[in-house]
C-alpha cells in the first residue's frame, strides 16, 4: 500500500485528470473546433464523460475483489463527484444552451421522451449522493450512508439506458458501456453470492482457487 503522501499526490493527479474533459472543451471552444453543431458536441461530450467517470468510479470495488488491492477505493468519492460535475454540465447544456431555459418545453421533453426521463432521473438520484459526499455526512448517516450510496447502481443503469435509447441506430458505444457495467455489477453479484454460500470463509481465498 502506498504511503499517505503518495496517496495525496495521486489524488492531485486524479483531480487534474478529472479536469481534462472540461479543459479540452474550453480549448476546442476557444479554437473554434466544436464541430458544426457545438451545442450537440458539448452535450454529448459532457454526457459521455459523466458515464466514463461513473464506470471508473464503479470499478474500484471490483478491483479490490479481484486483486485484493483496496487502496484505490480512497479515490472513489472524488471520482463520483467528478461524475456529478460533468452530469451537471450536461444538464446545464441541455436546459440552457439546447433549450434556452424554456421550461415548458423542457418539462414536456422530460415526460414525453423516455430517454430524457431516464437520464433526468439518473441526475436527480445523484444529487443526494453528491450532497452527502463529505466526511461530516458519512459520520452523521453512519450505516445509512452506504445504503444511500448504493443508489449509484441505479444511476449507472439509468445512465446507460439513457444513452442506449437516444442513439439513432449505431448502438456500438451504448453496448460497450452496458458490457462494462455488466462486468462491474456482475463481479459484485458473484462475490456476494460466494459470500452468502461460504458464510464466514475468506472470500479472497475462494477467488484464488477459482482463478
Amino acid at each position, binding site marked *: 500500500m502506498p504511503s499517505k503522501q503518495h496517496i495525496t499526490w495521486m489524488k492531485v493527479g486524479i483531480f487534474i485528470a478529472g479536469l481534462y474533459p472540461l479543459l479540452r472543451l474550453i480549448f476546442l*471552444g476557444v*479554437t473554434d473546433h466544436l464541430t458544426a*453543431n*457545438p451545442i450537440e458536441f*458539448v452535450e454529448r461530450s459532457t454526457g459521455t464523460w459523466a458515464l466514463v467517470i461513473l464506470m471508473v468510479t464503479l470499478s474500484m470495488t471490483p478491483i479490490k475483489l479481484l486483486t485484493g488491492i483496496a487502496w484505490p477505493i480512497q479515490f472513489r468519492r472524488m471520482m463520483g463527484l467528478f461524475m456529478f460535475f460533468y452530469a451537471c454540465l450536461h444538464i446545464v447544456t441541455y436546459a440552457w444552451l*439546447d433549450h434556452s431555459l424554456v421550461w415548458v418545453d423542457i418539462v414536456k421533453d422530460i415526460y*414525453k421522451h423516455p430517454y430524457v426521463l431516464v437520464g433526468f432521473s439518473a441526475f436527480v438520484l445523484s444529487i443526494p449522493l453528491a450532497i452527502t459526499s463529505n466526511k461530516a455526512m458519512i459520520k452523521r448517516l453512519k450505516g445509512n450512508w452506504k445504503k444511500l450510496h448504493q443508489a449509484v447502481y441505479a444511476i449507472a443503469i439509468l445512465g446507460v439506458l439513457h444513452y442506449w435509447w437516444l442513439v*439513432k441506430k449505431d448502438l456500438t458505444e451504448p453496448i460497450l458501456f452496458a458490457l462494462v457495467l455488466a462486468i462491474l455489477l456482475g463481479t459484485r453479484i458473484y462475490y456476494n453470492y460466494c459470500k452468502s454460500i461460504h458464510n464466514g470463509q475468506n472470500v479472497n481465498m475462494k477467488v484464488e482457487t477459482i482463478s
Partner: protein
Amino acid sequence: MLILKKSDIVPSEITPREVYDDRREFIKAAGFGLVAGAAIGAGFIPKNAQAAAPRQKISGYIKTPYGSDEKPTSYEDVTTYNNYYEFGTSKSDPAIESQLFKPRPWTISIEGQVKRAKTLTIDELMKIAPLEERIYRMRCVEAWSMVIPWIGLPMAQLIKWAEPTGNAKYVEFISASDTQTMTGVRLPVLDWPYVEGLRLDEAMNQLTILAVGLYGEVLPNQNGAPMRLVTPWKYGFKGAKAIVKIRFTETMPKTAWMKAGPSEYGFYANVNPAVDHPRWSQATERRIGGGLFTPRIKTQMFNGYADQVGQMYAGLDLHKNF
C-alpha cells in the same frame, strides 16, 4: 490547416494530376501525420477539421429563384457534418472516410416500369436537361437543419426522359454499397444497400432534384457523389446518396430506414412539427452554423414547402403516414 480555400483555379487544373496527388500524399503524410496526428490523438482537434479533396467547378447551370432569400450554411459545415452511414456513423466520418471513394466513372441503371430502361453514365444523365441551382433548406430527422445551394437535374426531367409505363406508381433509389471503398458497409448498421423511395407524383414534383453539385462545384464524396436525391420537404435521410439504380415500381419500395425501425421511420418522412419521432420532438430544430448561444428555431410544416407539396397529401392522415 490544409483546407483548400474556395478559388477560381483548382490546383488540380494547373498541376499534373500525378504530381498533384503525390504532393498531396506527401503533405498529408508529413503535415498531418506528425503535427495534427498528435493533436488529434490528444483529442484537441476533432478529426473533421482535415477534410480536403480537389474541388471542381461546374459550368453552365441555371440560377433559379428557389431559396434566394436564404443564407446558405457554410461550405465547411455542409461538407464536414454529414450523415452517410456507408462511411461511418459519426458525422465527421464521411468527410474523412470517403476520400478514397471513386465517383467516376459511374453508371446509373434506369429500370423497371419504363419504356426507356437503360444504363447511363453520370455524364450522359447530367445532359438530359439543363442543371439548375436550387437553394434548399434541409431538415434532418435528428432535429438539425442546414441551407444548401445544390446543383442538380430536376427529377421530373429524368422521368419524362425515361417514359414510365402506366404501371409505375413509385420510384425506388438504390445506393452504392461497395465494401472495398465504403468502410461503413462492412458493419450491419443498416440492411445494405441503402434504399429510398418516392411516390411517382412526389418524384415528379418541381422541388425534387437529383443533385450533382453544391456551392457551384461537383458534389463532394461525403455529400453523396456523384449523384444524390434531394427532396427538401422530407427529412434528410430520404436523400439517397451515390445512386446506382433508379427503379420504377408498382409497389411501395421498402426503404432501408423502414426496415431498420418501422415504428420510427415511415415511407413518407415528410417534415412535420406536429408528429414527433417516437423518441424525440420534431417541433423545433437547430440551424447549423450558430454558436453555443444560438436558440433553436421552429420547424415548419413540410419544412416550409407546403405551397409546393401540400396538395399531394390532401386527405392523407399524416399521423399514420409519417
